[in-house]
């Protein structure tokens, strides 16, 4: 009885997230049913590969939004780290590992600088990151004025396929044939990467005092400060983690395309899509409510809508219009509860 009550209240608190999850599940199931090779490993690999970068950028955007800010540099940091990784991911396995860690460190450092400017410069996050985003693109162009790079081919193939292909490429677990590996053999590696980041970085962070402070700052910064919470450090941590997640996106993009590309338009598109994904996933733009897992689902919804254009015969020039209308519909679902509100004051919460 008490369990049921607790579940009920948890569901109420996560209403927006559960709605997004349901929407995604429906979209994705129907997609697989319509796809000629639906429910196959090949389709799942393709879907995850396409989604990893936007999922990480959406998770990155979540943290500054939770504190009540907005980070306009996440797409640019992804592009910058993509270019850095395209220079570093070659040589021996040890060198590649070092290169990957260095890439992630660069992203985190860039995010940390964002946080320091916001906290100690007392400048609005949206303006700060607009400027630092331009700096990131400038650095990316400096590192890689022309698209290219020599990312290791085997690494690229192994990381963008199933666990079996990974084992086969590197001759692990008897070339992927080991009996104990078989239950996992068909799982895409990119899916595992995203899961690992969620389980080992996001969830532990959210449960620390620092993580809870990020939420507190977003709901009522004054109250958080008066309660003695480390408000400034929490903001810096939020931006640093955003930089780290954006670097995960850049690193994966480099592995996926085995190259780097300082593409300004792409950086802008990813930043805008990350904000859309955050909102779709149930995180409030006013801060304090939501989470990175919601944004992950939000990003997947964004992606799955465009999947449909490949299996249905829709006029190519009408596709952007349809995508926009479906998105608007999806966001509006989250606003349905306002129709049932008895006291209009509740709308201001």
């Amino acid at each position: 009885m008490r369990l049921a009550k607790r579940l009920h209240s948890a569901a109420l608190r996560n209403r927006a997230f559960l709605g997004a999850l349901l929407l995604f599940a429906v979209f994705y199931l129907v997609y697989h049913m319509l796809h000629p090779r639906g429910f196959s490993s090949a389709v799942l690999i393709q879907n995850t590969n396409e989604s990893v970068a936007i999922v990480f950028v959406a998770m990155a955007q979540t943290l500054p939004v939770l504190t009540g800010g907005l980070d306009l540099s996440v797409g640019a940091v992804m592009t910058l780290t993509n270019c850095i990784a395209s220079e570093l991911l070659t040589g021996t396995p040890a060198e590649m590992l070092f290169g990957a860690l260095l890439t992630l460190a660069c992203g985190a450092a860039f995010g940390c600088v964002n946080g320091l400017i916001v906290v100690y410069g007392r400048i609005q996050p949206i303006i700060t990151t607009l400027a630092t985003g331009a700096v990131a693109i400038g650095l990316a162009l400096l590192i890689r004025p022309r698209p290219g790079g020599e990312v290791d081919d085997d690494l690229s193939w192994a990381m963008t396929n199933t666990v079996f292909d990974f084992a086969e490429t590197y001759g692990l677990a008897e070339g992927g044939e080991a009996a104990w590996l078989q239950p996992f053999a068909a799982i895409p590696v990119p899916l595992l990467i995203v899961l690992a980041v969620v389980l080992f970085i996001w969830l532990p962070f959210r449960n620390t005092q620092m993580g809870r402070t990020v939420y507190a700052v977003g709901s009522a910064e004054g109250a958080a400060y008066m309660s003695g919470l480390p408000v400034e450090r929490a903001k810096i941590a939020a931006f640093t983690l955003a930089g780290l997640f954006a670097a995960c996106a850049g690193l994966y993009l480099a592995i996926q395309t085995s190259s780097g590309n300082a593409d300004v338009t792409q950086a802008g598109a990813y930043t805008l899509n990350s904000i859309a994904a955050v909102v779709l996933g149930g995180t409030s733009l006013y801060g304090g409510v939501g989470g990175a897992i919601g944004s992950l689902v939000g990003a997947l919804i964004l992606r799955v809508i465009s999947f449909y254009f490949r299996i249905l015969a829709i006029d190519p020039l009408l596709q952007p219009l349809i995508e926009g209308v479906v998105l608007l519909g999806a966001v509006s679902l989250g606003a349905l509860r306002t129709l049932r509100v008895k006291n209009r004051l509740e709308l201001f919460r």
Partner: protein
Amino acid sequence: MNITAKLTMAIAALAATSAAAFAGPEVVEGPGPEPECFAPWDESTKYLQWPAREGPYRIAVVNGFVGNTWRIQMIQTAKAFAQDPSVADKISEFKVVSTGTDAPAQLGAIEDFINQGFDAIVTIAVSPDGFDRVIRLADREDVVLVPFDNVLDTDKVMQVNEDQLEMGRTWARFVLKELEAQGKTSGKILEVRGLPGNSVDRDRSVGIHEVLDASGGDWEVVQVVGNWDDGTAQKVTADAIAVHERFDAIITQGGSTGVVQAMIDAGHPFVPVAGESENGFRKLIAEHADEGLKSISIGQSPGLVAIAMKAAISALEGNPMPQLISVPLPVATYDELEDGVNYWSDLPDNFFTVNEFPPCGVNISGPAIMAQTEEDVK
């Protein structure tokens, strides 16, 4: 016996896996079919051959950026060409998607079409690099992948483009010829360049300078950056005219209408202009050629998509195809312009006039399909 049997099986299995790994086109000797349409880039261009298969085929176009006239005209041409009697019965399913400037999305769309079992995928790459994975998958499934316009830095796939270097050379040769007719062997030339860092901009400019340097004349070339855009090109041309006062000729990579407009606005006398294939540019040439605007107009045609589709079908039929196909440059000089034929005085300035390639049987006029409604070309 047992051991030898096992060994044979192992070798057979090994052969099977290596064959699977190296599937894809075979490098063969040319020439291929319809050389007037599918011309090899140069003598060193190799030929690729895929195993022939029964039609009709399933073909997809994966576009990246969408939102300018050129891309819209390209998509409309692709749709109209798929209905063309010469190929319609060879295509059983035809899909077009635009992914935006988003590399993972474009790669994902290509992979999705490979998964769906499409026979050929035609694409304008959003980046010249990064397609290794989809090329590997396409080869494994024997799918013909054809990048055109923005091509890839690889020789593993069949690609279709116009020779940008030759375009630059043709512009420069024309301008030199016109200046020579005026008795000039030296002077000042304005070069309006395209989008910086782009390989097309680089190649066109290299071609221009190659010819100018080889001419032996004393040419002072002033370079400005016009981004292939009318507004930008007009502004930078106006600035250049304000500073240098007088040029003997202008070579512009794009935004040609804006360049001529700037010349008119500044009261600069008409001089030979070499430029792109915008309808507005050709209208101005037709109007002012007598006053000295003796010009040449060469275009990167949205109709390239139709040639890429045609090449894909030819490859699926098992023909040996040049790895890099050079589409002839659609050239029109001031004395060849004819209203309603290669420019349209009643249509807006931003149409790209060249859309047809008669040697390839591509006879879809750009303005004609743009003037139609969505329903007509479906």
